[in-house]
């Protein structure tokens, strides 16, 4: 049998001693490890969930309209005249301008917010393939007034069952009836769960918007490298509008889901700080028993470096296992349980609950960040006091 090199054998012995020492105080060490793992689990889950949402948004939303124009008045968004479309005719490079109406419909009986969307889908990119996004039915045609396509949650909340007709209130509280001609399929839930898609004329009637108005104009350009230039030209030509480019919309998502800027992350960081204080208190305040143990070891001939090695192994084992358990549990939580602990914070008071079938985002950078936030301070909090104790004369400690 191959012999273990002497240096390694010594480390194995130190490791064995550290493990026995951890086992002697198992209640304290297991307690610290579990609380530590819980903090890492919360941080990790939050990071994996927000990362997954950001990734999803980045991938899926790369096909959003290249430029969106909205009219602003007194700092608020209002309907934009269709005549603005003609004003943009002079800008070279615009491929298509598609008027769109979108708004929110608050269903008072179910306290749910639906998103109503209306546009001529035939003129949109991939408009001819839109029926693939439906589980059954087809998109409303111009020749079919009073028809709509519903997101799955809207369909469920309205309790349509086998019925196809539903009614929505107009601003004057009269009812407008719609016939359901299609329902979105499960795969698009993350995007279409709360949508009611209808024709422009129906949306105008529902929201009492004038014939000459829409809520925004979607603009597609011939050359994608010219998006910024064309956006600047539009901003100059229509000074009372807000011009949003695709990259700005995508940037919004990088910000909104960024856990570093969210209030929830502050709560989690507070938990981390609270744990750091607990760890410091538990680990740094060596009990008289532990001090005596260090003293005896020194009398027996152990060097300061050996005692430090034991403390280092103990802290490394506790913190690394807490890290592994926390991160593994976080992945399982997000991937298999749809982040059920964080979901209430994410959806708030929403009545429509979106599906969270997401791929947890696990990146080396994030793991390193969590590692350096959690394991490093713990190592510092435990090794430094042991070094302080092991440098004092042993007779003063055991006396």
């Amino acid at each position, binding site marked *: 049998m191959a012999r273990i090199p002497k240096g390694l054998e010594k480390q194995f012995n130190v490791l064995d001693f550290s493990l026995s020492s951890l086992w002697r105080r198992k209640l304290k060490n297991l307690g610290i490890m579990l609380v530590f793992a819980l903090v890492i689990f919360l941080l990790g889950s939050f990071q994996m969930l*927000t990362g997954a*949402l950001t990734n999803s948004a980045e991938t*899926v939303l790369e096909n959003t309209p290249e430029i969106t124009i909205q009219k602003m008045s007194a700092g608020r968004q209002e309907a934009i005249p269709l005549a603005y479309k003609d004003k943009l005719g002079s800008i070279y490079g615009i491929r298509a301008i598609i008027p769109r109406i979108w708004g929110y419909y608050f269903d008072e009986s179910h306290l749910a917010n639906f998103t109503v969307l209306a546009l001529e*889908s035939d003129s949109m990119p991939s408009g001819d*393939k839109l029926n693939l996004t439906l589980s059954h039915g087809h998109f409303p045609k111009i020749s079919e007034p009073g028809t709509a396509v519903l997101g799955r949650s809207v369909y469920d909340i309205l309790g349509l069952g086998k019925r196809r007709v539903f009614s929505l209130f107009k601003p004057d509280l009269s009812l407008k009836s719609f016939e359901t001609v299609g329902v979105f399929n499960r*795969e698009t839930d993350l*995007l279409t769960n709360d949508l009611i898609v209808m024709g422009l004329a129906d949306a105008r009637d529902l929201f009492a918007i004038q014939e000459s108005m829409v809520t925004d104009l979607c603009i597609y350009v011939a050359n994608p490298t010219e998006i910024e230039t064309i956006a600047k030209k539009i901003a100059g030509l229509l000074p009372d509008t807000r011009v949003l480019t695709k990259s700005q919309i995508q940037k919004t998502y990088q910000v909104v889901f960024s856990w570093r800027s969210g209030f929830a992350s502050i709560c989690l960081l507070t938990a981390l700080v609270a744990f750091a204080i607990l760890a410091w208190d538990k680990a740094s305040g060596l009990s008289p028993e532990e001090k005596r143990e260090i003293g005896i070891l020194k009398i027996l001939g152990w060097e300061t470096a050996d005692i430090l090695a034991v403390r280092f192994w103990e802290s490394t084992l506790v913190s690394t296992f807490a890290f*592994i358990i926390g991160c593994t549990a976080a992945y399982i939580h997000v991937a298999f349980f749809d982040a059920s602990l964080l979901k209430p914070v994410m959806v708030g*008071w929403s009545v429509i609950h979106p599906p969270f079938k997401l791929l947890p985002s696990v990146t080396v950078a994030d793991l390193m960040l969590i590692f350096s936030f959690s394991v490093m301070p713990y190592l510092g909090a435990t090794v430094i006091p042991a070094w302080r104790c092991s440098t004092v004369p042993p007779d003063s400690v055991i006396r």
Partner: protein
Amino acid sequence: MRPSYILFFIILFFFFVDATLFIHSQRLEEELRSVEKIQKIAVSGLGLTDLCVATEARYTRNPAVSDPMAPFMDHPGALEHFPTGSFWAPEPIKSFR
């Protein structure tokens, strides 16, 4: 048995658990990639700008294109009324205005 051998078996256990989860993540990624095609059609065909995550307030459903005044209307650091608002950072200055 030496305690370090027991530790080795525990590490091996976690290695297998995490390796299984890694394989799971690869499969899930493949599964979601096939769904992505349909999602992209929905986005380009309807000109969608946002994910349907939080529908409780109009500006949390469509943060990129909704009324810029609604969230943080008191001041940029104000705590939000809606729970999901706690996830929402003040949006970057993005208009060409």
